[in-house]
């Protein structure tokens, strides 16, 4: 029972990290109709810059702020240099070009920081832990990540649903041509969305850095999950991304534990040992397939 509570907490916290990455991705995809495979790179960059700035500025928090801002600026620079030339092009062109950006930046990071994984220490304020079950302590930092993720989600929701820029973004997601016909500078709107998305991904990268290894290519793992999240949630929908991120986080952690147990109940011996892990790694994709079959536009479609 307590195991389930622990798993749920983990799932929720993974969901929050995924949401931070997926939020930018879903807006960029939804508003600009632009497939940005290089979004995961922003997450990696955030983590690397976080490590560097934390060393230079002497602390996790300074690193978090500086790295998120620079990741945002870097995203804007990429948009200006490369991505804005791709908006009118076909999906395949966008996929190819952004994939090229991934390769280039992964190797670039390796050239600058080396290929050895880096470490970022937790902020001292949050480095404690509390006993959750006998023998297992739960780090305060993980709860803090979930809290920060939730706060950003609320802020973003307020921004998208309560402000004028947010209204334009929502309008852009449902009908881009109409918004532009009404005299809104759609390209400026794009840049705003892009910068915020890149910044959030960088923010998530810094938050994750104390828990996982900071290494070249770390963005791709997250990117795949983030795409699953936005497809389940409905492309362009912040609310959908939020719900789907929690679903994916929970399914990935709780489901993985449960399904190996289930496999052992229904099968015996080596078959169970093989089927369990295989099914567990497929689980979120099965969920995605099910959602697509029942609601092809995702749970909360942005385009009505």
């Amino acid at each position: 029972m307590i195991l389930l509570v622990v798993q749920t907490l983990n799932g929720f916290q993974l969901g929050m990290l995924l949401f931070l990455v997926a939020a930018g991705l879903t807006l960029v995809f939804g508003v600009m109709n632009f497939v940005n495979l290089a979004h995961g790179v922003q997450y990696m960059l955030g983590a690397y810059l976080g490590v560097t700035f934390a060393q230079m500025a002497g602390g996790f928090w300074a690193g978090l702020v500086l790295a998120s801002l620079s990741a945002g600026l870097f995203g804007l620079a990429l948009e200006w240099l490369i991505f804005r030339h791709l908006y009118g092009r076909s999906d395949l062109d966008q996929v190819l070009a952004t994939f090229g950006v991934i390769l280039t930046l992964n190797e670039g990071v390796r050239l600058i920081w080396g290929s050895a994984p880096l470490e970022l220490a937790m902020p001292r304020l949050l480095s404690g832990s509390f006993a959750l079950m006998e023998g297992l302590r739960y780090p305060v930092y993980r709860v803090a990540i979930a809290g920060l993720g939730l706060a950003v989600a609320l802020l973003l929701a307020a921004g998208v649903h309560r402000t004028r820029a947010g209204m334009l973004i929502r309008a852009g997601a449902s009908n881009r041509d109409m918004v532009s016909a009404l005299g809104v500078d759609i390209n400026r709107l794009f840049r705003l969305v892009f910068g915020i998305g890149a910044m959030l991904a960088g923010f998530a990268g810094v938050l994750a850095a104390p828990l996982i290894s900071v290494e070249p290519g770390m963005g791709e793992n997250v990117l795949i999950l983030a795409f699953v999240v936005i497809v389940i949630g409905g492309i362009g929908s912040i609310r959908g991304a939020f719900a789907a991120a929690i679903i994916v986080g929970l399914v990935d952690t709780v489901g993985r534990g449960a399904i190996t147990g289930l496999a052992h109940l229904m099968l015996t011996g080596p078959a169970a040992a093989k089927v369990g892990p295989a099914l567990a790694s497929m689980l979120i994709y099965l969920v995605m397939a099910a959602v697509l079959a029942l609601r092809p536009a995702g749970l909360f479609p942005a385009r009505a």
Partner: protein
Amino acid sequence: MLKNLLGGLALAALAMGTARAEAVKVAVISTLSGPQATLGEQIRDGFQLAVDQLGGKLGGLPAEITVVDDELKPDLAVTKIRGLMEANKQDFVVGPVFSVVKAAIFKPVTSAGGYLISPNAGLSTFAGKGCSKDLFVTSYQNDQPHSVSGQFATDQGYKRAFLIAPNYQAGRDALNGFKSRYKGEVVAEDYVPLNQMDMQSELAKIAAAKPDVVFVFLPGGLGINFVKQYRQAGLNDIPVLSTFTVDESTLPAQGDAAIGFYSGTNWAPDMDNATSKKFVAAFEKKYGYVPGTYAAQAFDTAMLIDSAVRAAGGTDHAKLLPALEKADFASVRGNFKFGKNHYPIQDFYLAQVAKRGDGKLQTEIRQKVLTADVDTYAAECVMK
């Protein structure tokens, strides 16, 4: 006049031709890009250090070293090696890091008349019935390091073990290697996806199962995440045995969280012999990081080639064979010889992560677990 000139040119060409034939040509193929490049760089650096110490020569002959990046892609490795062997036949190919690449380049190297010397990958395929006179392995057979932890757990009387490995063939081999020498009860065999970032699920299961010992094979990023999160979860009382999870390639990223973790190995930077001490000091001076087993094995490989070329008096393929088999060099591991399948017979140790005086982390040998260990496949090998 013209005739003389032509004659002179021909002579010069002949002289150059013989001079070139007198060089030892070695291709070092290693993984130098992508997330696994840290391992490949250790191999490249370890080999280069040995050649530098030998004055740019191997066995007294000038060494022509070509470094090749396999990018951890077997097909690409085959193309590059085949091209290299055809354009400029290499006497030795040293590499690779990973077993998948080794299986792919074995034929292209050996059928073109070169020796393949593996400083890391120790596939079972080539250790038993598939053994070859053109292949030498200077690391270990892949099962051996894992079985060290199994033996140690048995010796310590640990009754219940919890095992974790990535869900792919090498992961299954690792757990089987552990179990081959472990006599207690295995409470769980947990296979995780190769790209899993969060280990909390596994940690919760460990806390619930309360085993006497945990054994993990979690290479690269997996191990970094596991070690950090294990400490954060406060699971300090349960000892962790491991292979390729805490080593000099991952320790800089794991930091103090890794202190106390155990690792089964054939070498560690604090190995107490003169060759090893000299190697570690020179390596750190030149490259600025603590060498791991990858670098040590690559260093030994260069020294092996050096000894063989010297004994054979050149690079004649047939003459090199008995010279290589003798392994007449001072290994950083102390005791080292080849078994009949050209895989090493050596000692294995239990090492533990500790902090050195200068604040850097390294693995340190705690006790010898296996003495002059022969891999289980060697008996099936009939060398042709």
